[in-house]
Structures are given as structure tokens and as C-alpha cells.
């Protein structure tokens, strides 16, 4: 069952049901990729949103990974 249909209290049960073997994780990644690909890229008239969302995600992830360096550029020490 899909994650959006799971009630909050049932989350641990749902997590226990999932398949965490390497094959299962690879399958989940493949499924996620296919969902995104078939929804935004594998269409007759694709738009800009398809790749721009991927690039925005890349920007965000790289910002998160370099946050420990950017912390030192803060203008104020205490927030």
C-alpha cells in the first residue's frame, strides 16, 4: 500500500513490511525513477519542469552537503 495512504500510527508497521534487501532497495529506486521518468520525461510534449526539478533537487542536495563549510560565512553568530 502506498505511503500517502498510511495513517501516522501505522507508520512503524508499514516500515516493517517494506523490503530492505539490496534487491528490494534497488527495486524501489528503479520504481521511483520509472515513475518520475514516465510522468515528466517520456511524453510527447515534455516541458521544462522535467529536468528543472532534477536540477533544483541537485542544487538543494549539494547545498546540504556543503552546509558545514557555508556555516562559517554566516553574518551573525547567534540567531
Amino acid at each position: 500500500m502506498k505511503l500517502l495512504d498510511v495513517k501516522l500510527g501505522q507508520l512503524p508497521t508499514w516500515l516493517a513490511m517494506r523490503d530492505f534487501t539490496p534487491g528490494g532497495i534497488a527495486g524501489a529506486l528503479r520504481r521511483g525513477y520509472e515513475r518520475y521518468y514516465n510522468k515528466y520525461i517520456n511524453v510527447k510534449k515534455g516541458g521544462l519542469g522535467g529536468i528543472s526539478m532534477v536540477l533544483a533537487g541537485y542544487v538543494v542536495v549539494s547545498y546540504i552537503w556543503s552546509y558545514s563549510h557555508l556555516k562559517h560565512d554566516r553574518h551573525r553568530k547567534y540567531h
Partner: protein
Amino acid sequence: MLSRLVLRAAPAALRSLAPPVAVGVLHTTRPLHTTQQCLAPLPPLPEKGGEVRYGLIPEEFFQFLYPKTGVTGPYMLGTGLVLYLLSKEIYVVNHETVAAACILSIIIYGVKKYGSAVAAFADKLNEEKIAEASAVKDAAIKDLETAIEQEKKEQWRVEGRSYLFDAKRNNIAMLLETNYRERLLTVYNEVKKRLDYQVAMQNLKRQKEQDHMIQWVEKNVVQSITPQQQKESIAKCILDLKALSKSAQAAV
């Protein structure tokens, strides 16, 4: 038990296998035949992709928040989030921010100005590919239709076969008749020849008998004429001639 393991691994292997099917436009890497029923031909690609607002946020997010917060909900969420990140300096404003702002403005300007032209060009490329494929398909269909028409023509020709056979039968009957009559004529001629031969033989025989008999009679008569009778007949002839000459002179 091992067979059950294999059965469990099969769909995952199938899903990871997913051979790409490159048929011009249809570039799909969807898993094939994970269930018993298979879709052949493949369903056509959807016309437009998922809706994305401002090129960054999918429309489903706005629809997700709409029942609880109405139309301005996501915008409020976005504004609050941005202010929180700025005030807590989770997002640090430094030289990179200026660089990002310049790059983003140039990108947005470029997209706004040339977006439609690029889209039209890509659509034209797609149209050409589709036109090539459907030209092949149309040519194949036309060839098959021509073949069907020729087949129908052949079937129509088959109906005329009875006339053809009638004409052939007539021809053969005429040949047989002619042959028969020729042979009749030959037989008639042969029989006639044989009968003519018999008739000629009989005629010849009778003629030969006649001639022979006449000769024999003449020979005997000539033999029987004695010299004395010859003299008497000659004297009689002379007397007759004189009498005739006298009557002739008297007539003149």
C-alpha cells in the same frame, strides 16, 4: 523451496532486465511482461507530462494543500519557509547568492524568449520521425491493399475459367471430328481404290478376251479364204464398181 526462490527472483529480474525498445519516438524502458497479460501494441505516449508550476513545484502539491488551505496555502508555506531559512541563516547569503541570482535571471530570460522556438523545433523533429514511421506503415498498408485487389481480380478471373474450358472442349471436339472425317475419307479412298482395281481387272480381262477372240476369228477367216474365193470376190468387186461407175456417169 529452491523453485519458490527462483519464482520470487523472476519478477525482480524481469524488472531489472527491461530491455529498451528503441522504435524512433517510442523510447520506453518500462518493464515488460511482469504480469500474464501483455499490452501489444504498446499504448501511445501521453501528450503532456505532469503539470509543474513555475518549473519547480509539481501541481499535485498545490492540489494536496488546496482542501485545507485554499489557493494561497502553498504560497504562504513557501514564503514562511524562505523567511525562516533566511532568518535562521540556514540559507547563508554570500557571494554565491549573487552568482545564483545572475545565473537564474539569465536562464529565465533565455527560457522566456526562446522557449517556444526550441519547443517548435523539437516538435518538428518528432513529427518527422513519426512521419517516416507512418510512411512505412502506409506504404505497407498500400502494398497489402494492392495485393488484396489483385487477389480479388484473380478470383474474378477464376469465374471465367468455365468459359475457357468450354472453348477448349469445343476445340477438342472439332479436332476429334476433323480427325474422324479424315479417317473416313481415307477409308473411302482405300476401298474405292481396291474396288476400282477389281473393276479394272475385270474390264481388262474382258477386253483381252474380246481382242483375243476377234483376232482368232479374223485369223480363221483369213485362213479360210482360199485363193479361188479370193479371185471370185475380186471379179465380183470389179463388176460392181463398173456398174456403179456407169450409174455415176449417168447421174452426172
